[in-house]
Structures are given as C-alpha cells and as structure tokens.
C-alpha cells in the first residue's frame, strides 16, 4: 500500500488501482451562477487494499472529488488532467498494460468503456444507501451481480454470504432473523447502510467508494458497518481498495491507512488537497 504523496518509488506500480493527478474540477451553481473549483495538484495513488479516507470540512469538495474518482461525474476539462487511470481487466492495451486511461476515455467520450468500468470495477456505498426500493434486500445485493453476468448458484451463494456477513440474517436459538426477503423500505437506518455496503462489494470490485457513512447513521452504527466491511474485505481474495469520504476525523483515523486532507482555498471558492498521509 502506498500514498500518492510520496510517489513511493520503492513500491511497485503494479498494485496501483487508481491514480489521479492535475485535476481542476469546476462546479457551476446554475441558480447563483457561482463557480466552485476542486483542485488536485498532487498525485493521488490508491493501491490494492488501501483504505483511503478523504477528510475535511464541509464544502471543501470531498464528495466532488469522490464523484470524479468514481466516474460518476465527467471531469470539467479532461484534457487538462495530468494522470487519471484505473486498473481494469477489460481495456488492457496491446502492450499488455492493465490500466485504463480514464483521461483519454473521457476525452474520447468512451461512455461505454466508462460504464463498463463503473459496472465491473467500482462499487459504491453512497451517503443514504440509495437502494432500489422496489427490490428486497437480497435482490438489491444481487443487482451488481446481475449487471456483471454472475448467474445461478454463484450469485445466490454470494448473496447468502453477504447477508450473513453483514448480519442481515441470523439464527439465535428460536429467534430467526432474516431480512433478505424484506423490502428495503422496511429496514432501519443501520440495516439499510449494511445492505448498501454489501451491495457495493457484491460483484467483487477493485475499488469501493463509501460516501459519508455517518451522514445517515450515528457513529456507532456507521463504525459497526464499516468494521464488518473492513473485515470482509480483509478476508476476501486480494482485497479491494476503499475510498471513504467523511468529515469525521475519528472515523478516518480509525479505519484509513491513507488520509487525504482537503481544505477550502482562502480567498476564492475552491477546495484542494492539502495533505496525503500514508500510515503503515
């Protein structure tokens, strides 16, 4: 695991799953006409198994950075980006490079490729869970697998594993507790968040983005969910990198091995990465 800040020449580049440098993301508020700029002026490298916490005060551009990294939002000026690449199995070039050049993908408007990356290599656990209300817990967890062609027993077993792992089903004596067939709108906040986390990793992505896990939950519930998430990732094959946005420093320090600090730029409506701290 390595932070981008040190460039870590000592570590191999082969375990980098995501790299970004030289981003200027402009956000326009159509109502006020004001513009907010998020700047990444130092290399941000995420390696396999990293738990990255993007930390900073409200309004400094954490979520904006997360959406650009997670390919949920098109960069304002893709051509001006220094480096933006992700490790992907599908789009290796003729030289055998395992990385997808996202800068070029955005420049060339390769939406199909971007959608593929998002579908296959990225998992999201967003602020409010954002589950599909028409589906049950198990069905929600199964959605990414459906989209990635995971079928039959493999899918059902994976769903069962995740349901069990996130405590959505348990048998204690005569007490049978099973939420897998329950509609998600019947769940409590903690259960909802756990389903969201389970869904985010169901298709075994390379990177999982977790946005403000404590926004809709209290800290204890969020901590419990994240703990389960980390344990599951740690026990998985290879382990995915996790990028979490939070304004909770305590949570960031507790879970992350890489802390990315962001802060507003003084004198103008902007936010930028001020520090990338990699801990062993």
């Amino acid at each position, binding site marked *: 695991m390595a932070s981008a800040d040190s460039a870590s020449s000592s570590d191999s580049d082969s375990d980098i799953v995501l790299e970004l440098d030289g981003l200027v993301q402009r956000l326009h508020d159509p109502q006020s006409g004001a513009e907010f700029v998020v700047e990444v002026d130092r290399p941000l490298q995420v390696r396999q198994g990293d738990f990255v916490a993007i930390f900073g005060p409200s309004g400094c551009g954490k979520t904006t950075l997360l959406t650009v990294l997670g390919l949920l*939002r098109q960069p304002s000026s893709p051509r001006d980006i220094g480096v933006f690449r992700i490790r992907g199995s599908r789009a290796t070039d003729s030289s055998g490079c395992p990385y997808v050049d996202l800068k070029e993908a955005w420049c060339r408007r390769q939406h199909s490729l971007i959608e593929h990356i*998002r579908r296959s290599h990225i998992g999201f656990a967003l602020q409010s869970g954002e589950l599909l209300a028409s589906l049950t817990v198990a069905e929600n967890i199964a959605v990414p697998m459906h989209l990635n062609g995971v079928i039959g027993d493999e899918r059902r077993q994976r769903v069962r594993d995740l349901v069990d792992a996130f405590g959505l089903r348990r048998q204690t004596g005569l007490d049978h507790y099973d939420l897998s067939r329950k509609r998600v709108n019947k769940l409590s906040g903690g259960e909802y968040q756990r389903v969201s986390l389970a869904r985010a990793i169901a298709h075994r992505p390379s990177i999982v983005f977790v946005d403000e896990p404590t926004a809709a939950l209290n800290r204890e519930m969020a901590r419990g969910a994240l703990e389960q998430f980390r344990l599951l990732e740690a026990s998985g094959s290879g382990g995915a990198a996790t990028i979490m946005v939070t304004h909770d420093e305590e949570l960031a320090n507790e879970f992350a091995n890489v802390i990315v600090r962001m802060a507003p730029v003084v004198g103008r409506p902007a936010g930028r990465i001020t520090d990338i701290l990699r801990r062993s």
Partner: protein
Amino acid sequence: MLARFRYYTCLALRDLIRLWSSTQHHILIVAGICLPILLLLGLKRGHVEELRRELMTSPTGRQIVFWASQDGELLDAVGLDALQKTLDGAELMIPDQRRVVSARRATEGQPLTLTLYSTRKGDPILGQYQADVLQANEKAIVLPNNVAEALGIDTGDTVEITVRREVNGQDETATIALVVKAVYPAGADKSDIGYVDSGVLSSFEQFVRGYAVPDFKWQAAPVAIPDTYAAYLYLFEKGQALTRDDMEYLANRGLKIEEIDTSQPWELTDFIKPDAMVRLRALRIFSESSRADPARRLNLAPSELTEVLSIPDDVAIPWNVPLEAKFEDSAAALVGFSLPRRCWLRGDLIADDLAFPFDASAIGVVWPFRASVLGESAALRVTGDNRFVLPQSAAGLQPPSNRPLPAEGNLQSSTHATEVAIVPVDFLARMTSLHHDLAIYDPETKLIAPVPATVVFDKVRLFARTIDDVPSIAERLYSAKFAVDAEDERIQEIHEQDSSLRLLVFVVGLGVFLFGVLTVISVLVDSTDRKRGTLGILRVMGVSKLGVFWIVVLRAAVIGFLAGCLSVVFGKLLAAFLEWPAPANSILAAWKPTVRISLTPQDILLVFLGALICAAVGAIYPAIRASRIDPFDAIVEGRFR
C-alpha cells in the same frame, strides 16, 4: 448484453408494480386521453357516418322532379325505364301521379277522402319509415297512421278504395280492396296521403279517363271514339274567298290548301250535280302527312274549322278514305258523307238526302238502301285484307230504293269496290280508326271506343343515388328539354353540413390528440423525474444510457398498453350503453340519447397502438433526459424530489 436487458426489463416491471398507485394514476391519465379518441372514432364511424350517410342520401336532397317542358316529351312507363338507363347515378324514377279517392274500412265504416300518391319499390320517402313494402302492381296500400286510425285499420287489414270518374257528364265509381301493407308515422300536418304502386295508380288513371281496366274488372265509360279523324277537309265556297286571317289560321295548324279542278273527276264528282260543280269553288285542306298517307288524321273537327273561319256560308266536309265493306256477299265502298241538316250544299247534291246529317243518332247506310245498323255494327271486324264484314244479321236491312248509284271507279282508294255505300262521316271515321287499330270494339258498351292510351306521366320524381349525382342528372335532363326542379340549395346546405361535420370531427380529434400527446409526455416527464433517484442508482451501478433509456421507454410502453386495454374495455362498455335504447317509460329515456358508436377492430387497434406509440414517443424525451444526466446528480436531485 441480452441478459442485462432482460434484467432491465425485470427491474422496470418490478418498479411499475411497486409503485402501482402511481402507475394506476398514469394509466388512468393516458386512458383518459385514449378513451375519448376511441369514442370519437366510434362516433365518427357510427353516429356521424350515419348522419352523413343520411344527409348524402336524404330523400329530399337527392330528389329531382322533372316534367315535360315545351320541347321535352311526355314519358310512359317504358320511356321512363329507357330514360333511367341513360342517366348515370339515377337510382329510381317514380311517376308523380296523384288521385283523390274515397277510402273506407272494407264493407263498413265511414268513407274518408284520401289522396293517393304513386310509389315504386325502393321509394326512399317510404324507405325512411320502413314502409317501402309495395311490389310492382301489388294491390296494396301504405297509409299514414292518422288515416289508419281514422279508418280503424292496421297493417294486414283491407281498405276499400273508391275511384270516381265523370265522362260526358256521367258519374261512375269503381271500387277495389287493397291490403294495408304498412302504416307510417304521419308528419305534423297529418295530411291524408296514401301510397299505392305506380302501376295500380296508373290503372286508376285509366279508369278516370274512361278506359276499361280488365285487371280490376272495371268497365270503360260508354263513350265512342271522337270523330276527328278526317284525312282531308273539302271546303266549298259559295261566294267570299278565304281571308288572309283564315289562311294564317290554317297555316298555323300546319294545314295546306289547294284548289280542286272540278272539271276533272274527283272524290265528290258523282255526288254533286254537274251544273253545280261548275259554279262551286272547292278547296282541299290537308297536311303534308295526310297528303302522303291518307290514313293519317288531321285531328280537326269540321265544327272547329267552321267556328274559327270567318266565312259563315262555307261548307267543310270531312273526308276519309273509303273503305271496302261487304254486305252479305256484296262488296261496296264505304263512303262517309255528312252535311248539316240545313246546308245549302244539299241542294247541289244529286239527292238532297244523300248526305247524312252530322247529328244523326244512328249509324246508317245509304247504298241504295237506308237502314239502321246501330246494334249490328258491333260485330264488325277487320279482316286480313282490310275488309269490314257484316254478319248474317245484317241481312235484314231494307231493300235498296231507286236512288241513282254513283259512278264506278271514281273512288280513289277503293278501286275494287263495285258499289258505293254512303255512311255517316263519323261512322266511317270510326271504321277507319278501327281499321288502323286506333279504336277497339267494347262489347260491354257496344261502342267503338278509343284504344286505352298508355298512361303518360307529365311529372316524374327521380332519386339519384347520392346528392352528388344530382347536378349531373339535372344537367342531362335540362339538355333533354325537360323542366327540372332539383334541390340545389338543399344540396349545398347538405354539403356545408357535411363539411362542418367532418371539420368538427377533425378539429375535436386533432385537439384531443395533440393535448393527449402533450399530457402523456408531461405525465411521463414528471413520472421519469420522480424516478430520477432510482435511475441515478442504476447509473451509478453501471447501467448504460441505453439501459436507462430502455427502462424508461418500456415503463411508458407498459403504461400505454394497459391504458389502451382500459380504453378499449371502457370504450366497449360505453358504446354498448350509448347504443342501448332505454325503455320508453323509464327515467333513463328522458335524458339518455341513443347514439350509434361503431368500434371497428381497426379503430381499436389504432387507439391501442396510438396509446403505445404515444406513451413510447412521449417517453423518449424524458428517457433521453434521464440517460444523459450524471449519475451522481441524478441521485442528489432524486433524493430531494
């Protein structure tokens, strides 16, 4: 890829079911647009089309009345049929005959005066009352309900019709029983009008004109054929010549005059004393046709001529070509010769009673004998060689007197006659008519009566197939010199009504359609916006733009499909209800109209597809919008909706 789209389909359907209340709402809105369109189409094909068809085929609109004008010929039944064949678009011609008759319930009841109109099978006037039931020459009648009630009869009963005629001052009636085949609702005026077949009414006309109607066993009136059958007129002038006015009068009648050279033998040479022949000036009045064919008639009575001509002393003798006749075994030429009783010309004849008086009450023969043969003339018949043969009963005639006989060989057309029989001029005229089949012998009246003339119609009602055929038919009739009365203004009015009706249907249909599409789009845009959060989640998880597009369009298509089903079901129910005639005495009958709505499979399919396409097309814009939005923005925006 296919599996993914199958999954998208599944997601869309699950979402529809989960949000069923919202889906219902959208289905109802789309059905609310489709149902009026379906009913409008049904109305257009049903009630409106029926109205339009009624307008286009309205009996009054497509009726043309025409009659013989100055040059147009009068038509009989055969002529009508022939004329109809030459008129494209003519559906039916009905002679416009009317006859006032007396009607009463058979064998009892008070008589009622009724005006009978002629009709024919296919008469649209009766057809609109479902009373077009009379077959050709059927002894039946169609009556208005007010007349039927007044007579106390109904369909299937018999009504006794009495026809009256007055011939030569003599009143006669004839009665026939007609079956009431239909009773139609009378108009507000409650007029006493009945309809009988044109053939039957023609028979009534024949009776009124004095002819026999064998089919009805009605006899002819006891009237002999008129005596206006002279081929020539011989005019004897005593003193004054014809004036210019006289000549003009004759010329106007198509008559010509030539002076006879009395020094040469002519028809009357042997009848007039030789010294008188020198004194008298004789003129022959003839027409071109009678000159060419002496059998042709002038149709001019001598009395008419002498009344009009200014010379009171002149004598006009009608002259027909003598006919050969046989009295038992003796052949003779029948010569018609009559003069007024006190005519000065009698003194110039070889015998002053040689000529019969014009007012002779009996048919007589002067040949050298005189006898009454009134009763016996009935047996006269025309033989194949143009001979009249008197029967044996004529043998009882008086023997000849000692009168001088006319010289032989002076009768131009009876060269074979060896003897001359002088008969009253009207007798010979009638014999001539009989000879030329212009008269018949009526054994009932024992009279030589006119051959029943074919009924000629002076006015005809023609029904074109549609009102659009009226102008061309009217033009053809104009050009055939008929006077024509067509409902041009009514046709124009009908066309205006028709185009107004079409415009109304079009405008309403277009308005409903346009606002329907806008409503559907608006509903779907709103619905899709509400789904933005869900669509954002799907986009976050990597669902492609095409996938989102598919989900949105599929959702709309399902809504359209269900709305189409709902529209068809409710449309059918509504159509059945509107078509159902409420019982006359029910509360519903007071306000519920009976409207024919014809929902054809094409219309149903059209509305069904229309709902589908409308919903699908209406979903394209929101689908594009939904697929273009950044996933995260979609989630954020959807979160706050």
